[in-house]
């Protein structure tokens, strides 16, 4: 029992990693994702990797899994027929939302349709006040009638969200119990369990979304459990959450909305993994794929967490155009810049790239599958970054002529430039877009970009990383081995954890500490019970507290750490000090004389963070390092130069080579500009020293 499996289902491939804990060795496997029943792909992938390594299912101690199931169900609106029960008079809150437009100039703006249509939203007479005191008790005949109305319309899942239900959950619980006892087949999501936070629209939205995806998540995870059992795998199954933490199967079935960013979170956690292996505490994880680029910060081996998130945006990449879900999620920027992003010359005569993407079908012009428009990948090919005969390890031949034609017809001619100069323009514009977004993100965190090492992932990440890092004045850039299975590696270093929250709006100075201590204690207890049920011994549990705080009168809260133990007036100074420190980091000033107010309290109960030791990750020393030279055009140069091309598989630990260089591997190509130096560390990561550039 000394093996662990990480499984990540992506759009095209299902990735599997096997960790041999005794021999400190990782093995990667890859198989096609099976859309009909995704567990088929999982079984194929696992069988393959177990066979190759002569390992039996019984030897698997733990299975870690991430999936895009929930996100896709929201985007494609393929969830259950869901009903919503609210306090009478507030049935439309879910549809009215926050009344804000996400685009000021578009008269044809559309807003996301609510997950529960108006005819499936019913109100029940009941009311709590802001303290959770019952103003009107739950009207039983109203309840029976409302539930019947939903049942008659055939709902499979019901969301319950009452005003101030997070302050006193008894009415929500009574309602849930009523449904469960009368209609046991209906799935029920309760707001005081899913998102016990102030702000009725956001809480209703999260609860409705949870109900919407609960039946299909339940079915899928139960099936996964069965299939693993059939392979004699009886180890613990943990599921990746949006926060980069893990939960149990039961936890995932109960709150599936926490799985929304399961896959991308794995990507950031892979950064944590590599950071731990190479002793780099602070990283900037940069992942660029076919349609998007994502980036996030890692601090002190921990991802940066936010609770502002939106699912199913109507206008992709546009903040405010989706359905809000306040769950802990790794704070990530996502922009429409990937290999498939289409470049065009707009009405102003400017070259723009994305967010429209050619996707994988028809794909970039050079895929020769009917794509007519020039994309980032076409530009990368024309510039010599990509090898037409070694794309995806040579499994796919690229058509250089098609790429040149597309760039000539759609870009070069209207810009009055050569094909090569236009291609360089595409490369520069897309890099600039990513650098701009990254710069804003890092500044919003009050951080200095120069402090970070960039870690490049994804098919297109290493192709663009050098010049993005250069725009951001980063000092170091690295590309790990196995970037193609990045997310699955990340699962291995994640900890099982649960965050329990409670809103309680009050100024520090007038806080009722007795009450605060009481609920903080409850939150911690519920977390400890959850972890105990996951097989984690109490001695291994760490508890940390945070509060979302602001200056009284402000509308944005910041996360402030709060000491453990019994709180009282004596602790105010300490909490205020923590607040000031965070505020100052973010806004480079503090404000005296304005009282500090706390809005929501969070208790994170966490199991141990796995420490994984690895022998050298990679041992294929074929020593055929230099593959040859080819003409490559870099933005720093006026004309192409003969650039050395290396095979990633030929580089050895300790190699030190000057840029420029192209390093080819199956899943990606690492482009390293002139005036730099790179080396290969003992984990086979390529580390580029940017100082020289």
């Amino acid at each position, binding site marked *: 029992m000394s093996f662990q499996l990480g499984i990540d289902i992506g759009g095209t491939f299902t990735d599997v990693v096997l960790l041999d804990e005794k021999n400190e060795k990782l093995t990667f496997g890859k198989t096609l994702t099976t859309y009909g029943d995704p567990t088929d792909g999982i079984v194929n992938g696992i069988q393959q990797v177990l066979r190759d390594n002569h390992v039996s299912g019984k030897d698997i101690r733990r299975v870690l899994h991430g999936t895009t199931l929930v996100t896709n169900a929201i985007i494609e609106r393929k969830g259950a027929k869901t009903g919503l029960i609210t306090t009478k008079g*507030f049935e439309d809150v879910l549809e009215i939302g926050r*009344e804000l437009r996400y685009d000021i100039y578009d*008269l044809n703006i559309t807003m996301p349709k609510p997950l529960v249509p108006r005819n499936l939203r019913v109100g029940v007479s009941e009311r709590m006040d802001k303290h959770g005191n019952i103003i009107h008790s739950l009207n039983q005949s109203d309840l029976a009638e409302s539930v019947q109305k939903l049942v008659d319309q055939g709902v499979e899942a019901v969301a319950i969200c009452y005003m101030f239900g997070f302050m006193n959950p008894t009415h929500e619980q009574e309602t849930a119990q009523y449904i469960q006892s009368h209609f046991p087949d209906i799935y029920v999501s309760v707001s005081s369990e899913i998102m016990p936070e102030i702000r009725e629209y956001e809480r209703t939205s999260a609860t409705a979304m949870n109900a919407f995806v609960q039946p299909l998540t339940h079915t899928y995870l139960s099936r996964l459990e069965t299939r693993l059992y059939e392979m004699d795998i009886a180890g613990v199954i943990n599921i990746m959450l949006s926060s980069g933490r893990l939960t149990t199967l039961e936890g995932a079935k109960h709150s599936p909305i926490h799985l929304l960013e399961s896959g991308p979170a794995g990507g950031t956690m892979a950064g944590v993994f590599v950071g731990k292996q190479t002793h780099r505490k602070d990283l900037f994880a940069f992942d660029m794929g076919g349609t998007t680029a994502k980036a996030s910060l890692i601090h002190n081996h921990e991802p940066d967490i936010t609770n502002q998130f939106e699912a199913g945006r109507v206008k992709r990449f546009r903040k405010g155009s989706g359905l809000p879900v306040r769950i802990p999620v790794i704070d990530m920027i996502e922009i429409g810049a990937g290999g498939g992003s289409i470049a065009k010359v707009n*009405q102003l005569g400017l*070259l723009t790239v994305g967010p429209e993407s050619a996707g994988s079908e028809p794909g970039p012009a050079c895929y020769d599958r009917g794509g007519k428009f020039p994309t980032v990948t076409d530009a990368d090919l024309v510039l010599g970054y990509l090898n037409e005969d070694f794309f995806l390890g040579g499994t796919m031949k690229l058509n250089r002529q098609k790429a040149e034609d597309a760039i000539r017809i759609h870009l070069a001619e209207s810009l009055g430039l050569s094909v090569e100069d236009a291609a360089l323009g595409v490369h520069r514009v897309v890099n600039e877009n990513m650098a*701009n977004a990254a710069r804003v993100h890092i500044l919003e965190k009050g951080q200095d970009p120069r402090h970070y090492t960039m870690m490049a992932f994804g098919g297109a990440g290493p192709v663009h990383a050098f010049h993005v890092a250069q725009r951001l004045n980063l000092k170091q850039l690295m590309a790990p081995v196995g970037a193609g299975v990045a997310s699955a590696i990340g699962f291995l270093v994640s900890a099982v954890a649960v965050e329990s929250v409670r809103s309680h*709006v009050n100024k520090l100075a007038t806080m009722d500490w007795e009450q605060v201590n009481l609920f903080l204690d409850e939150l911690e207890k519920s977390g400890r019970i959850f972890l105990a049920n996951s097989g984690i011994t109490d001695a291994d549990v760490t508890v940390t507290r945070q509060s979302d705080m602001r200056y009284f009168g402000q509308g944005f809260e910041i996360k402030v750490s709060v000491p453990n133990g019994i709180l009282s007036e004596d602790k105010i100074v300490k909490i205020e000090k923590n607040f000031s420190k965070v505020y100052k980091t973010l806004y480079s000033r503090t404000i005296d004389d304005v009282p500090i107010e706390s809005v929501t309290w969070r208790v994170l109960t966490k199991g141990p963070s796995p420490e994984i030791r690895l022998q050298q990750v990679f041992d294929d020393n074929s020593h055929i390092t230099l593959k040859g030279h080819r003409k490559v055009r870099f933005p720093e140069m006026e004309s192409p130069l003969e650039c050395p091309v290396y095979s990633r598989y030929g580089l050895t630990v300790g190699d030190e080579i000057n840029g420029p260089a192209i390093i080819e591997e199956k899943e990606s190509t690492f482009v390293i500009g002139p005036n730099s130096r790179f080396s290969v560390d003992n984990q086979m990561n390529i580390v580029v020293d940017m100082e020289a550039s």
Partner: protein
Amino acid sequence: MNNQKFDGINLSILWSRLLAIVDEAGTALQRTSFSTVTRESNDFAVVLMDTQGRSIAQSTISVPSFLGVIPMMTKYLLNGNFPLNSWKTGDVVTTNDPQLCAGHKPDVGVVSPIFHQDKLIGFIGTISHVPDIGGVLWGAGARDAYEEGLLIPPTKLYAEGIQNETLISLIENNVRAPMQTIGDIRAQVAANDQGRKGLISLMNEVGLNNIETLAEQIIGVSEKAMRDAISDAPDGTYKYTYGADGDGINEPVTIECAITIVGDEIAVDYEGTSDAHTLGINAVLNYTYAYTAYPIKCTFSPDVPNNDGAFIPITVTAPRGSLLNATGYVPVGARNMTGNMLHAPVFGALVQAVPEQVQADCGAPCWCVVLNGRHPEKDNMEFVEYFFLNGGYGARPNRDGEGILSFPTNVSNVPIEVLESSTPIRYHEKSLIPNSAGMGKFRGGLGQKIIFEVLNESGLNMSVLTEKLITVSKGLNGGKDSIHGKISISPERFIPPKGIIRLKKGDIVTMEMPGGGGYGNENDRDPELIKYDQDLGYIHS
């Protein structure tokens, strides 16, 4: 990279960097702001300008109130007491004069010069709505400009880096929330500084020593895009008359709008519009310009980032002393109630020229509610709480209006639970009102109803600004009008539509905002849409 023209690649890269610079500064300003409207409603703007005070880049999420306003203000400063050669490194000039700035005193403008290699190369300016500026409780109730609080004429807030202590002290002693107000003004200075640093770092990076060519090119292509779009519209003069509530009792207002399109230029004239109103709903010309240019920009050039170029082909005139060109000392505090409906006459005129590019009237302007009283649970501390209500969105030529959506400004609601936590009121209802929009081939978005009860023994003062109690959201191209809005109180008594009322414990206030106007003939409506509306309960037959 200086005085030669930039190609389509370099221009694209530099332009997006400039926009990122103003957006970064805007984000910092918004997040540190105490003012609810700045924060929740994006009621601020950051603008980067050349040495002539022409806008090159404006923060993208700002509300339309400030379109063209900071450049107009800066040009005024340059032509007045602050000529180009007088600016020194570390200077910062501020003013809230409604005539020069954004039309009412809570909007404070702050302008800083940008020096590079010891040469003045441009300006950066911000406007933000500060928490308080003195005077009577915000609303339409002031009798003249003096009752609307402190006026700061264009004054140096910093002279070569040294703070003007007299001005700070003057502000501190004349506003209700001095820490927050001074804090917000300082945040503007800091935002200007951040934008300045961003620009200098960009210039160093790419080796620019001035931004004249860049400004010229950005303004040039934006102007051309706007002119090209206007010239596609047929020449002519298009007129529309729009009636509004005024005080909602016995002094209504009429807006006469005549739009003349000749070639690639648009001239909007409000000749015939009502005189300045007794209530503070009067708009200065800067503000009238902003809310007139806004629907025109949406119609003709929605995708081009904001800068001076888009506005060169647009002129706006209104009779001096009228509702839309307030002069002298008439009150202007609630000018948003007028500015926020100018899109309706503009679209009403433009529909005759470009019927496929406009939208019907929205359930706008948003209603504003200010509650003021003493908090029973918080040591009887005085509180002032603002909230806003939006109506339905107008129908479009190709689709229904959205449900509740803010237009033309962009103000979010305050969550009910947040409001109840800070104010002694309790909501009974917040819901969509079926049948409240104008029907048509496409219908308007529905309006909304809220009902709340007053909880505290000592009661509250409520200042309200409502609209469309006697008028409606107008339909376009054969589309029907919306229903009227309503405001009532139980036990029943009179509520001034734009004014202040004292509320007692147990009072129940009901507000109903109208939906948007319809577009096109109702007989042409798709039967599937009719069925969908009935199935979901949006429309009852």
